[in-house]
């Protein structure tokens, strides 16, 4: 067992699961989507990105790209949230909530790709 690999895989999986937790629920209902979950998803996604830095393999580059996409989507979701609540003052209307959740849905997809790539790579190494 390789501790570095465990931590690496842990963060990539955690980014996926936390993101999924936030995404779950009715798309336009603010009660179903906790702000702390979005926060956790964003922080973990950032950490996962940094862990992928400096990988020279082809698959490492793809993993990094997927992570950057997830970060971008989650940051966009957080910015939409902050603007809706604090800048325009419109609050979490169903429309705003739907766009936040769908952005995080995009991030979810990117995280899914990351996980699949990681699985593929480790499966290939085992053989």
């Amino acid at each position, binding site marked *: 067992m390789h501790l570095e690999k465990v931590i690496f895989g842990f963060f990539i999986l955690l980014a996926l699961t936390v993101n999924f937790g936030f995404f779950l629920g009715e798309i336009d209902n603010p009660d179903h989507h906790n702000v702390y979950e979005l926060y956790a998803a964003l922080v973990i996604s950032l*950490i996962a990105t940094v862990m992928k830095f400096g990988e020279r393999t082809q698959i490492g580059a793809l993993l990094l790209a997927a992570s950057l996409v997830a970060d971008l989507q989650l940051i966009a979701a957080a910015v939409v949230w902050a603007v809706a609540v604090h800048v325009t003052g419109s609050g979490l209307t169903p429309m705003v909530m739907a766009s936040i959740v769908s952005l995080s849905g995009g991030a979810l997809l990117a995280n899914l790709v990351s996980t699949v790539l990681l699985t593929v790579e480790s499966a290939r190494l085992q053989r």
Partner: protein
Amino acid sequence: MTSVIPLILRRMRAPLLVLISAYSVAVLGFTLIPGVDDAGNPWRMSFFHAFYVVSYTGSTIGFGEVPYAFSNAQRLWTMVSIYLTVVSWLYAVGTIISLVRDRAFRAALEESRLRHSVKHLQEPFNLICGYGDTGSLLVRAFTERNRRVVVLDPRPDRIDALSIRELPLHVPALLLDARNPENLVHAGLQSRWCMSLLAVTDDDRANLKVALTSKLLNPTLPVICRAETSEAEANMASFGTDHIINPNHRFADRLSMAIHTPDMHRIHAWLSGVPNLDLPEHPQPPLGTWIICGYGRLGRAVHRALREGGIDTVIIDEEPDTNGCPPGTVKGKGTEAKTLEQAGIAGATALLACTVDDADNLSIIMTARDIKPDIFLVARENRLANKPLYQAAAADIIVEPSYILTSSILSILNTPLLSEFLKLARREPVQCHTELVERIRAVADGKVPESWTIRISQNRAPAIAKALELGERIPLGSIVRDPGNRDQQLSCLPLVLSRNSDCTLLPDAETDLESGDRILFCGSARAFHRMQNNLQNLNALRYVHTGEVRPDGLLWRALARRKKARRDAAMEQADS
């Protein structure tokens, strides 16, 4: 750039992880800790406010307690987050700075930048290995002619000297050892734009290795090599190095040419000199006894050349036994009057100072002149930087190995037919040389003449190629006429004509040109430019060839047609 970015990312991994963790803990803490708003109601920060507070605290800006005054619990957490975030920032910034100052990192950055610039060189360039005196003369000569070079040298001080030099073109200077084949490939050895490889380091082994690498990895690339010893020369020739230049042999050869056939030497010096300087009248070295101080490589080469020419020599050397000097050698340096007198300076006509130390050489010629003011003095200049001293000491001939190398390399690259011409001319009898000197002097007009090669081909001389295609006979004499006034000859002289690997010395004006001919000319720069007209422009060629001025362009052609039609009609009328 490929190797630099992953390097930065890998080094920044730990600091960034620390920074993200510190920020996330601090932000989370602020959103959880209860506070009180201005109306006294319980209030908790949103993520937006928390991130705002942490951002200005972490970067040590500190706007104070925003949006409401903090509760004591919040102040406690503020203290924790200040230490957390500020320390992680310092760590991250410190890592970046140490990375930027890291020598290995800077070397990687510089190297990747240079490789990039070599890889993207999209025009012909020459690869120079070794940036000593010869290398720097070559770089100047090439860049002044607007030609690209790439330089390799393993010594940092030389590469630094090159990078601060003011040159008309950017010269990629790679701090790499040319003996390593991989480095040569990085410098563009296999690039299709690489025109030639010049190995001019002062180490024969290194030059040999470079030539060998090049012949194995890119066999068609012309290689010009410097060699100091005959063994290295033979070795380089054995695997097909295109040109090998031994500066000592070249000089010895030229010296004996100057003694025995001064006119031939003059032709040689004029045609291989730097154009547009005043035409030098070289002093003629005398016959009679020569004293050679220092039996090194140059001394040995000159000794052999003089002996073959039947000239007596006396050698002065510090260690005659170990250096294998011929019998009769005087032991000593030559810097003292005693040694020189012992060598018989009173009866000698000329002296060559060729020790490896410039101070010794200068001292020798000063002493020799003191003893015998009219003696002919030749001195070897080891370092280009000492040139002013040699000029002030007024030696009759100054031997500069780096200059000999540079001019030989340039004439090989610029005018490949020149060496062919010189070889042919040398076989001619002496009166031919005298005649040739007068003819060159006539076209040169007091300046060192330019020499250039023309080639009768579709690309280089489209007008002539077209005329030949139409079955016209074009004699050589036609193209040396002035396209402005065909009765005047251009001030140039056709030196040699090369056709199907046969060379004709001083071709006749009646010689008909054929496709594929190469002709070497010497003459003024003006003649060179005017001649281009004859080669490129069909109208100019027609004029110098036949004397007929034919109008060109749509309007003039139409007018000419009408004029001709009218004339034809008039003639028909006259006939009937």
